[in-house]
């Protein structure tokens, strides 16, 4: 009986939970512990010695930092999924937003985005809004969240009027949030995965990555709305 810890970006919560179960079924004797948070904090944890074996981030920048700090085995790094960025509003919202610039309307008082310092979804949102020249204008309305799932939570509870999350997140909470529009002017969203350098369980870690990249893995991911890399 052995156990691997997979530190994965918050947006992977539902998909990787299923991936983990299927992997355990396919590899008897190996248990998967999943640790979800924003990619930035996950990187910090690994740097401080968190016993993670696999790291899956939601953006290339965080994985690049991990690579620079020699926290991952470079040769194991692979891109395994893609995603889209959407603007969501609470399901019962009366306001209708047809374009990003509608966010400047007076009735939109609070917009939640991930904190660009540590949340990849926040960085993509910053890019998209900056290219429309809206980032600085909208700043006073921002409610910065610690992870993309917190953005989703704020919108579903109606605490904010709008939020920017991944398409896959919006799909998870269909009954509570409505996709107002898709965002496009940002770098392509590519999820990289790699084995953590400090692991002593290189074998099962590699096997987990292989499973994610396998046909079965890709199928699960696409079921939750992730695109091919």
């Amino acid at each position, binding site marked *: 009986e052995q156990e691997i810890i997979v530190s994965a970006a918050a947006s992977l919560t539902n998909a990787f939970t299923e991936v983990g179960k299927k992997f355990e079924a396919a590899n008897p004797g190996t248990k998967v512990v999943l640790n979800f948070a924003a990619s930035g*904090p996950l990187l910090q944890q690994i740097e401080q010695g968190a016993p993670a074996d696999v790291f899956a981030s939601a953006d290339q920048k965080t994985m690049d930092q991990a690579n620079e700090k020699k926290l991952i085995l470079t040769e194991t790094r692979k891109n395994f999924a893609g995603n889209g960025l959407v603007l969501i509003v609470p399901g019962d919202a009366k306001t209708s937003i047809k374009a990003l610039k509608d966010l400047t309307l007076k009735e939109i008082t609070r917009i939640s985005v991930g904190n660009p310092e*540590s949340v990849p979804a926040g960085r993509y949102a910053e890019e998209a809004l900056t290219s429309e020249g809206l980032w600085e204008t909208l700043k006073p309305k921002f409610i910065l969240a610690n992870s993309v799932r917190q953005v989703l939570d704020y919108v579903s509870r109606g605490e904010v009027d709008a939020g920017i999350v991944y398409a896959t997140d919006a799909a998870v909470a269909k009954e509570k949030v409505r996709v107002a529009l898709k965002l496009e002017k940002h770098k392509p969203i590519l999820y990289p995965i790699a084995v953590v350098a400090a692991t002593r369980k290189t074998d099962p870690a590699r096997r987990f990555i292989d499973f994610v990249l396998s046909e079965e893995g890709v199928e699960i991911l696409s079921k939750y709305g992730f695109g091919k890399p």
Partner: protein
Amino acid sequence: MTQTLVPLLLTLKVAGFATLGASLVGVSVAFLLARVRFRGREWLDAFLTLPLVMPPTVLGYYLIVIIGRRGWIGSWLYETFGVTLMFTWQGAVVASTVVSLPLVFKAARSAFESIDPNLEKAARTLGLSEAGVFFRVSFPLAWPGILAGTMLAFARAMGEFGATLMVAGNLPGKTQTLSLAVYDAVQAGNERMAATLVIITSLVCMAVLVFSG
């Protein structure tokens, strides 16, 4: 500099208001419980002590249920006045008040209860009204105990993290107190910032401790 000054000032503002609120409520209820015998007296005590033993995140959950935009009071506030406490420094004050209330309350109650009842009786025979007895005898005699409780409450309010994070979020310059800023800086791997914030906070806490001890 401003990066540490802004959260420090915000923290002092939030903790100050929270301590004020907690002291007013805590001292009045403590006096009531120490002097008047009524049914459910000990239940009220237990209820007010609950935040001392309850995880701050659970308190945060309850506060969201109550003052969230769709909460019992929150929805009314929003529909009536168009305001919401979530993600505002006022929300942080509410969270910190709840969390630090038991500290003043407990200290004040035991301070009032340890006053020799003959002193209050003596004041009555000297012609003092009940209000006079409170302001000229009970309160001044309980003051050292109340002050110590208030200092602890202030320190607790300064350090509040879990409930504040859930209710007020972590908005730099708006609701990001020292405690949250430390967390943020460590999360973002900003080591110098983290160290600076930690040192400032430690100094303020030690000052509080020295004053209250």
